[in-house]
């Protein structure tokens, strides 16, 4: 059965079709990319009914049975995350149509390759395969960071490359330890064998892998690469980085800690402490930034901290809140970075003190930005409120200290988002400043994302149901039962 591999295969084919299409003319690149993304999105959506009725769909590559072959596992967690991530990339590509003016071939094939890596990590059932897809994702991200070949983008790219390669090497070392002790690479098989051993090497291996994944998701002690990479890369790519690639690290931590290995209290404490530091530290650092994109980057770190704290509680509510916050954060940050992208595109600078004079208040951008900002803070009627409320409730059930920290971070979020809004849109805005017309391909993604934010916020039951389904799919016994039959 090869059917399950199709969303990834379509993206991989698109990646290598783009250079062929652009041999004569660059006119049809955008059509090819959009067609591939739409096909992949439809294939992922078409899998949802099957996954919901059976609980989990497993494909064995080339018909090799589970512990020997590579299995691709679709459960509610991976399918809903795939749909969300493909959708974010689709909107970012629509936005890029007028934004990227040269080197289109390289740009669009690298963006497709990032998506291949993401979908691979999320859907694979083999731990080495996960490493390979993580490397695909990372290498294409390094190249996209260096895309403009300006001074700061080259510097950010080499920094990202060194730190990111260190992270993936640590992951590989952890995988080597696991293979040495357990003699298997299939995640379900590891889950079976790990419960029978008390070998301390397993703990070391898990620590190495999780450290690598923390570096990939940019939590605070390991965040040095993140603001530079976000600032220097093209804005639609930043929206993909923040909305898609950083979440991959958190997904891998979730899957490994709760499904493959056992959620022992040391690991949960580690998640909570690192999460709390990132939550507060990211928000405090965001408060003092002068560059709009750096501010949003630090805000991303802070929101990843929320996810880590909530996941680290280990309770049902905490996990739902964390998983839902991953999706909500990627929608909101997708919107905010696209707004920032348009502002930077028009003002030719991302220093907030210089932007305001060059930029006239524009209704589409302005309202999208303020809705995204309020949703990020967690104001009711927007989607950010649902997941933040779940996080507050879950932390209060375990320790009210964490609730206070989360509330303080939310207050800081309000402070820095309002500062950004004031500096960019309100402070010394000249009515006569020249204003370009916004192309439709740049407006459309913003309007769609604002619509989703409001819909998910007004009908919270829908997203809470989905997040509960996603958390159930972390169940260890069901995962083993489905894969090893």
């Amino acid at each position: 059965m090869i059917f399950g591999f199709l969303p990834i295969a379509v993206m991989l084919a698109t990646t290598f079709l783009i250079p062929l299409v652009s041999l004569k003319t660059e006119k049809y690149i955008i059509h090819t990319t959009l067609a591939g993304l739409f096909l992949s999105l439809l294939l992922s959506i078409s899998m949802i009914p099957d996954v919901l009725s059976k609980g989990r769909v497993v494909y064995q590559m080339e018909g090799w049975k589970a512990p020997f072959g590579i299995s691709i596992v679709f459960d509610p967690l991976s399918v809903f995350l795939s749909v969300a991530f493909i959708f974010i990339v689709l909107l970012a590509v629509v936005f890029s149509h007028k934004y990227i003016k040269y080197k289109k071939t390289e740009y669009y094939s690298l963006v497709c390759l990032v998506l291949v890596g993401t979908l691979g990590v999320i859907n694979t059932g083999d731990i080495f395969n996960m490493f390979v897809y993580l490397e695909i994702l990372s290498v294409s991200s390094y190249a996209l960071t260096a895309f403009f070949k300006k001074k700061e983008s080259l510097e950010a790219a080499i920094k990202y490359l060194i730190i990111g390669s260190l992270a993936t090497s640590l992951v590989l070392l952890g995988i080597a330890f696991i293979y040495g002790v357990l003699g298997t690479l299939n995640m379900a098989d590891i889950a079976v064998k790990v419960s029978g051993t008390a070998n301390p090497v397993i703990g070391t291996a898990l620590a190495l892998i999780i450290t690598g994944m923390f570096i990939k998701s940019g939590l605070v002690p390991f965040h040095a690469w993140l603001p530079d990479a976000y600032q220097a890369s093209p804005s639609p790519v930043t929206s993909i980085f923040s909305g898609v690639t950083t979440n991959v690290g958190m997904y891998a931590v979730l899957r490994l800690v709760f499904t493959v290995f056992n959620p022992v209290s040391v690991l949960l404490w580690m998640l909570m402490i690192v999460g709390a530091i990132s939550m507060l530290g990211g928000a405090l650092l965001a408060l003092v930034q002068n560059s709009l994109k750096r501010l949003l980057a630090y805000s991303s770190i802070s929101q990843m901290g929320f996810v880590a704290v909530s996941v680290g509680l280990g309770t049902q509510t905490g996990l739902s809140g964390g998983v839902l916050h991953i999706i909500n954060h990627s929608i909101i940050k997708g919107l905010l970075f696209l707004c920032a992208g348009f502002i930077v595109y028009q003002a030719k600078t991302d220093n907030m003190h210089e932007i305001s004079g060059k930029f006239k208040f524009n209704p589409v951008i302005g309202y999208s930005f303020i809705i995204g900002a309020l949703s990020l803070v967690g104001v009711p009627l927007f989607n950010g409120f649902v997941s933040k409320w779940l996080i507050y409730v879950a932390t209060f059930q375990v320790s009210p200290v964490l609730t206070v920290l989360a509330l303080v971070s939310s207050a800081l979020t309000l402070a820095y988002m309002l500062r950004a809004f004031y500096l960019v849109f309100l402070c010394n805005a000249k009515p006569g400043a020249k204003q370009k017309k916004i192309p439709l391909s740049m407006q459309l993604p913003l309007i769609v994302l604002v619509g989703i934010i409001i819909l998910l916020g007004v009908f919270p039951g829908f997203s809470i149901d989905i997040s509960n389904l996603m958390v159930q799919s972390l169940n260890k016994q069901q995962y083993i039962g489905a894969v090893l039959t």
Partner: protein
Amino acid sequence: MIPYIAAMALVIIGFYALLLKDNILKKITGLALFSNGIHLFLLSLGYRAGGVPPIMQDLNFTRLASLAVDPLPQALVLTSIVINLSVTALAVSIIIPLYRKFKTLSVRKIPEMRG
């Protein structure tokens, strides 16, 4: 035992160069050493003294299983070598324009590297 010690030495030297060397090119070399140490470690996991290649000469499974080396780490290392090649190539292709822009590869002398 010797391959494991060598692998550990490679990992430690690579990590040292990656963290403490000033020149970016040396950092990249350290990265290559680091991952080659991991490759050596993986290969020694599947090594067996006097082993034969895991190719079936006759249909005797038990003889093959008792003699052959573990082929899986070799496959993993091949994959990982290819990945490392692409990472190093990308790193060098970023370093060349970086040198043209800054006229140095020292991390301390590039002001943007600090933030």
